[in-house]
């Protein structure tokens, strides 16, 4: 093998190994892995199943909130949430119909919400402002109007 080729392949392998180590360290040591909750629900009976029989926001600690939310064509329930700056918010999500996406623009909150599955994701809101929440998985003719807001005061 050519010397330059050896150098190139060594650098390539080294770079790729570094990527593997960094993503692995973040996932397993820093618990930054992607949202992968594993709880099931009957998608036909979301309204009768706890906790989704009472969607809404609940304070569960100092600066800590739980939001139980259903996604359905083409809305979120509850809509227009408000939390104080510095709050940590735990979202518990499911879909009542097709696959939806749960994205809060300007944050790293981004998760797939699938019928039959309960998805969970947590975010700390430090910066005050009005955040756009939108569905980022095609869900039908009104997909582009499926949005709401989170106001951080």
């Amino acid at each position: 093998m050519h010397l330059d080729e050896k150098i190139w392949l060594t650098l390539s392998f080294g770079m790729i190994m570094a990527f593997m180590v960094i993503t692995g360290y973040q996932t397993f040591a820093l618990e930054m892995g992607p949202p992968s909750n594993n709880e099931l629900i009957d998608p036909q009976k979301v309204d009768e199943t706890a906790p989704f029989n009472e969607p809404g926001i609940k304070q569960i600690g100092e600066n800590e909130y739980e939001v139980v939310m259903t996604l359905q064509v083409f809305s979120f329930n509850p809509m227009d949430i408000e939390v104080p700056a510095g709050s940590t918010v735990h979202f518990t999500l499911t879909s009542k119909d097709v696959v939806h996406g749960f994205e809060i623009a300007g944050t790293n909150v981004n998760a797939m919400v699938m019928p039959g599955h309960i998805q969970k994701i947590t975010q700390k809101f430090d910066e005050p402002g009005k955040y756009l929440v939108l569905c980022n998985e095609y869900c039908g003719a009104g997909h582009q109007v499926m949005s709401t807001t989170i106001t951080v005061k």
Partner: protein
Amino acid sequence: MIKSPLKSKVDSRDGKLAMAHLYVAFIALLVGGLAGLLQVLVRSGKFQLPAGIGYYQILTVHGVVLGLVLTTFFIMGFQLSVVSKTAGTFTGKQRTVGWIGFWIMTIGTIAAAVMILLNKASVLYTFYAPLQAHFIFYLGLTLVVVGSWTVGAAIIMKYAEWRRANPGQQSPLLTFMALVNTLMWIVATIGVAATVLIQLLPWSLGWVDTVNVAVSRTLFWYFGHPLVYFWLLPAYMVWYAIIPKIIGGKIFSDSLARMSFILFLLFSIPVGFHHQLLEPGIDAAWKFLQVVLTFAVVIPSLMTAFSLFASFETFGRSKGAKGLFGWLKKLPWGDARFTVPFIGMVAFIPAGAGGIVNASHQMNQVIHNTIWVTGHFHLTVATAVVLTFFGAAFWLVPHLTGRKLTKKMNKLALIQGSLWAIGMTFMSGAMHAAGLLGAPRRSAFSDYGGSAQAAEWIPYQIAQAVGGSILFIAIILMLYIFINLAFFAPKGEQEFPVGEALHPEEKAPMVFENWKLWLGITVLLILFAYTIPFIDLIQNAPPGSKGFKLW
């Protein structure tokens, strides 16, 4: 040194079969390109679709027609040509199998297209359940896949015949590469065939009430990522084995090229979870395993990059180039057969880097389902791959039709490639930038209730419309060139360039042709990456989902 039956010209009967595929591919380019133009115009916010046509209907046309039809038909036509050229003319039986495959694919395409146009299948090309299309849409896509297997069978039969006739010898490089891509395609499409035949068809026919959504997504993405390598490998064939001949150089290393193709066969399939990183129901550890395998598939691409630029540099220096980059000046920039694919190669550098971001487990969360992803694959498939296909068409079409690429057409082809580069820089660049700000992909125009954040995305959407319009002009130019080369260019002999190795005495080890070994490892890797999480998705399944028609 092997004496392969390298005829100067592809047999005209094989040429007809290949051209039939290319006609369908370029019709698809027109239809899909028009759909793409309408999409960028709608998303600019300045234009509305007439006559009650839905944005998502147009988007389904764009994805299916360009992502599945244009690519599959072009690739099959191209691979039939290179196999006929390097392994010899197809036998009558093999060619008949090829024609049967072509017609199955074409009938499937028409069936799926009719359902999309009747607005019975606005489910996008990923057709995620529980959105439910008309069963004929699923049936049509199944026929496209089955037809592609049939065309693939012709290639496999030709390869087997060549090996029998040349015992103990390595197969011609381009035939070997076409075979690897065919085998990879067959293994990969089993996933999409399984979800369509076992899940979606019975469900859309009303034979079963519900569908397991997570299983169908997993089977789709088992197919969905190798699909992108199925697009890429023919471009790599051109880059490795054809471009060196066009510039007047040699293939840097025949063995390196074969090894990188084998690595693609092994590693491009067990990586589908990196499209599902944000989904519930799959453990983060299994996702991470497939992220690691995804990183592994970067290696053969980095090997390819080295090999290409090494062959360019070797050629430039043989022409007396001096200094670190003097060899660049020696390359034939006036030859569209080189320059247009070269633009594609350059685009693949940011495209590949963006791909690593997408695959990187947590970084994926920043860009998942944003228009960044659309920007990414418009650099990979819609620039690197497609410009290489166009570059190949500039010699392949006249070669097959007994015509010549004239100076005038060559000049137009160079303009076409440059327009593509300019249009795509605007469109893909703006997509990447807006995606980082959070703008979603696959959405019609929306101001999201007057959101200040969404207002920031609109200038980028206008830039996308400008870029997309330039790209549409480039498509029209390409179609003009194609029609000229197919029907009007002067009669003559256009060379079919096939590169030779720099060191032909260095034979690639025969182990590369041991398909039991490579397919065995491929299957083992797939079982390793998928068995446990897949069984888990079936055993711990939620009650299924009924179908929804929401468009």
